């Protein structure tokens, strides 16, 4: 992974490596396993370019001032090397001229004690050590392909489970509620995000011919990809705002108007996506806008990170309120904190916080591989996880699926208004943990019976902070 240190977005740069719209830390393109001869004009261009920059640098950099012997700055044909003190090995990142050179590996050059660059014993020519650049390429490539197929499978599974969940939410009208409406929009944005990611991974990434031709359609695809990424995270933010308003601000009062949520979730992500498209076309118009080496990507990822941070604070506030309310019931301390922790852990995948907490890739090769696998699972299977936790594991949904739908239809008209607000609390409850019975009624059987007494005691308990009798 590139080490960047002086930038004010250091954390975000590292986070960038994790965001699913990018090619991540490993190059997915098709390899050749031997270094190619520099007949290829594109590669030659890159090398000539680097050569020019090198001699410019050699011209402009100040002369060596320290005492003692040193090796002169030089261009070795692929990379530029500065003045180096005698007896020292200097290293820099491998170039990316060839498909099987890994730019995260290091190339090195030894300046011997006499102040001359190291000469290879066989050919007696000045020699730099590029062996690490392509020595692990075949393993890395295997892993890259594994991660690539894992990503595609993950998104396909996510799309399937999300579509099933959406079908369930739309089919069982009795489940309808404001929070479910937000869930539906969130799931829909996940579906679209996964579809665009799969389109990108299948059509663009393994297709260098298409990238070279650079049609406008692949840039449009990239634009929509960035837009859907924004939608995904902004809908997560909407969920957080809704929960926050529901639990902290106005406890289980009448229904909120959802227009603003729709605006924030579907409308607003157009703004960063458009600004990114304009800036990219003007300043960094590479083929298919595939390059991840540009800071212009922060135009989209900056707001996403801001949304995640805001969400995080809302989440903390929600947990704080819940813990306070739980404490007021005089239950055992350990029970309470455990439930709060479980609550946070279940809400985390919904609100995408893991990208904020785990940004740094370890340097060690094995740990780095494990990190890659874990992050890929978290990223690409997130839709599946969310659909499972908030639809398939939901007690209400399971109950509805179990009962005959005709039974629900007759009771729906009566129950919809009564249970909309209580159901919001019960969703919160079932997705959080078991909580004291006299605070929340989560047993789905109770829903079948007259649930009115439960509603009153809940509201009284939460509003006044006292236990109900």
């Amino acid at each position: 992974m590139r080490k960047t240190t002086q930038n004010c977005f250091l954390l975000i740069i590292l986070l960038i490596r994790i965001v699913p719209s990018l090619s991540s830390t490993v190059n997915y393109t098709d390899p050749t396993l031997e270094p190619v001869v520099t007949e290829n004009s594109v590669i030659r261009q890159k090398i000539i370019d680097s050569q020019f920059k090198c001699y410019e640098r050699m011209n402009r950099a100040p002369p060596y001032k320290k005492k003692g012997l040193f090796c002169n700055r030089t261009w070795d044909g692929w990379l530029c090397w500065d003045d180096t003190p005698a007896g020292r090995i200097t290293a820099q990142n491998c170039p990316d001229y060839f498909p099987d050179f890994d730019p995260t590996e290091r190339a090195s050059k030894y300046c011997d004690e006499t102040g001359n660059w190291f000469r290879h014993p066989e050919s007696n020519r000045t020699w730099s050590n590029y062996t690490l650049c392509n020595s692990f390429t075949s393993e890395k490539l295997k892993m890259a392909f594994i991660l690539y197929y894992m990503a595609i499978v993950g998104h396909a599974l996510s799309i399937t489970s999300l579509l099933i969940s959406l079908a369930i939410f739309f089919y069982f009208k009795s489940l309808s509620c404001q929070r479910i409406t937000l869930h539906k929009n969130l799931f829909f944005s996940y579906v679209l995000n996964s579809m665009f990611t799969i389109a990108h991974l299948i059509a663009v990434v393994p297709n260098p011919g298409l990238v070279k031709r650079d049609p406008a359609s692949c840039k449009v695809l990239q634009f929509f990809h960035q837009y859907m990424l924004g939608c995904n995270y902004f809908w997560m933010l909407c969920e957080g705002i809704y929960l926050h308003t529901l639990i902290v601000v106005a406890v289980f009062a009448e229904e909120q108007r959802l227009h603003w949520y729709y605006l924030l979730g579907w409308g607003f992500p157009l703004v960063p996506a458009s600004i990114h498209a304009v800036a990219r076309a003007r300043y960094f118009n590479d083929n298919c806008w595939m390059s991840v080496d540009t800071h212009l990507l922060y135009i989209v990822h900056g707001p996403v990170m801001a949304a995640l941070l805001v969400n995080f604070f809302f989440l903390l506030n929600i947990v704080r309120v819940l813990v306070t309310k739980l404490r007021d019931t005089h239950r055992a301390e350990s029970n309470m904190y455990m439930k709060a922790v479980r609550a946070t852990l279940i809400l985390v995948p919904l609100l995408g916080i893991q990208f904020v907490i785990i940004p740094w890739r370890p340097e060690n090769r094995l740990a780095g591989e494990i990190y890659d696998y874990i992050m890929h699972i978290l990223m690409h299977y997130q839709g599946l996880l969310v659909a499972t936790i908030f639809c398939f594991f939901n007690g209400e949904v399971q109950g509805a699926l179990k009962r005959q739908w005709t039974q629900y239809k007759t009771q729906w008209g009566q129950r919809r208004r009564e249970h909309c607000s209580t159901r919001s609390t019960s969703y919160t409850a079932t997705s959080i943990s078991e909580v004291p019975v006299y605070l929340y009624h989560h047993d789905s059987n109770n829903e079948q019976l007259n649930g009115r007494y439960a509603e009153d005691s809940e509201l009284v308990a939460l509003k006044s902070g006292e236990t109900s009798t």
Partner: protein
Amino acid sequence: AQHFIAATACQEPDYGWMIRHYCLKQFQLSMEGIGQRLWCDWDETVGTYGELTNCTVLIAERLDCYWPNRQVDEFFVAVHRQYFRNCSPSGRALHDPPNAVLCPFILLPVLVTLLMTALVVWRSKRSEGIV
């Protein structure tokens, strides 16, 4: 260079002389043809620069020298000093705009995001009738 037969191992002074007399002359003519105003335009000069490099590589092969070497370094440093001294060094590959342009591009959406979030939070409070 075609009629010069390499018989011995690499002689660096000979190599230096060769590239100055054969490659550099050609390069000078081409650069004169391009015109001094455009010397800093990479699109114009890239072809000529590439040919110069190729020329030094070919002569190295003829003289049985490895490429690049100390003479090549000194040669190119001198060429750069003469032709590209006033050019901006990084105007070649795709690069980000300067920070003065980049930071507003990034900070603006972030600020608008925070404003929108605050707006939505405020509006959802208001719609409950709670101030």
